[in-house]
């Protein structure tokens, strides 16, 4: 076996440092950029999978598509530690209060990704028993279309979430607009 040459440049990609001022022994940038960078690359998703989109999500987490490349390999099956709620599948009206409770249990800052036609709009289930899109009970940040979407699309959705996480102002969650938006959904 060939010994590894420690002097060879590594092909492991690291996150690029944010814009800032650099000199001998110091680097200055804004706190917001550092926090955004850190959050963006360590999103803990909470999978709320109810049907076939959940199967696509399993492929997304698997070795071939590997969501871990984006810093999201650690799924949080408790909402308390999760950053991103991924809703994948048909949400029946009876499931609605459960989903809302899971959302309420998540700590701020929290993001929501609606994966697939059913979570986004009810999809083919235009019927009395199915919730016509989860945005009727909780706020949604990114919608992924498809029935079901391919893993590439789910990854694209996660990357759009990453962009939101990176660029979000640290004060956004304290703003009156944000609180008014939550109040609209009846969430304190």
């Amino acid at each position, binding site marked *: 076996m060939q010994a590894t040459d420690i002097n060879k440049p590594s092909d492991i990609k690291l996150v690029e440092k944010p814009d800032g001022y650099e000199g001998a022994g110091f680097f200055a940038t804004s706190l917001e950029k550092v926090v955004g960078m850190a959050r963006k690359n360590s999103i803990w998703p909470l999978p709320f999978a109810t049907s076939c989109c959940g199967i696509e999500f399993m492929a997304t987490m698997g070795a071939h598509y590997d969501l871990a490349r984006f810093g999201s390999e650690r799924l949080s099956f408790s909402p308390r530690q999760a950053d991103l709620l991924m809703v994948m599948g048909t949400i029946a*009206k*009876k499931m609605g209060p459960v989903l809302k409770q899971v959302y309420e249990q998540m700590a701020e800052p929290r993001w929501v990704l609606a994966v697939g036609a059913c979570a986004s*709009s*009810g999809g083919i289930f*235009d*019927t*009395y*028993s*199915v919730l*016509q899109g989860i945005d*009727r009970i909780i706020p949604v940040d990114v919608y992924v279309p498809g029935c079901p979407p391919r893993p590439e699309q789910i990854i694209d959705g996660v990357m759009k979430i990453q962009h939101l996480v990176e660029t979000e102002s640290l004060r956004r969650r304290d703003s009156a607009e944000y609180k008014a938006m939550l109040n609209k959904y009846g969430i304190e």
Partner: protein
Amino acid sequence: MDNTAQEKIINILREKFEGDILQIENPYNFLTITVKKDKIVELIQYLYNHAETQFQYLTDLCGIHFPDQNQIAVSYQLHSLVNNYRIRIKIFLSADHPVTPTLIPVFAGANWMERETYDFYGVIFEGHPNLKRILNVEDMIIFPLRKEYPLEDQVREDKKDYMFGR
């Protein structure tokens, strides 16, 4: 089920419930007997106990809405495991006031089936210990499988005409 078995079951029923049988059909070779609603529990109990029928398994119990006749039918499907006979018994109730006694004294398994029939058609099973919704959300105010209620969710927006340039 062959004809002789069907004849036998019909004769057994005629012995005791001659005046209560309204109609005897055989769609898709499935013996279907429509009876008056008053004696339905007694009739099913009779078929359960009779030595030659022994219909001791309740396969299904469900509702059917006939909006033209303003009636709701309740269909009981029974199976005799000993003889491998199957039979369907139907009763018709007024859609304005669908009330019928519960079948739980004969089949304990009728409990959830009757709750489901109540949930979707609003049939009241008198004597049922826990007649409340089983599948739909508890605060639903309609009986969704009745034909007067639309199947679609009325809040759906992406099927409106303007979405298609109409």
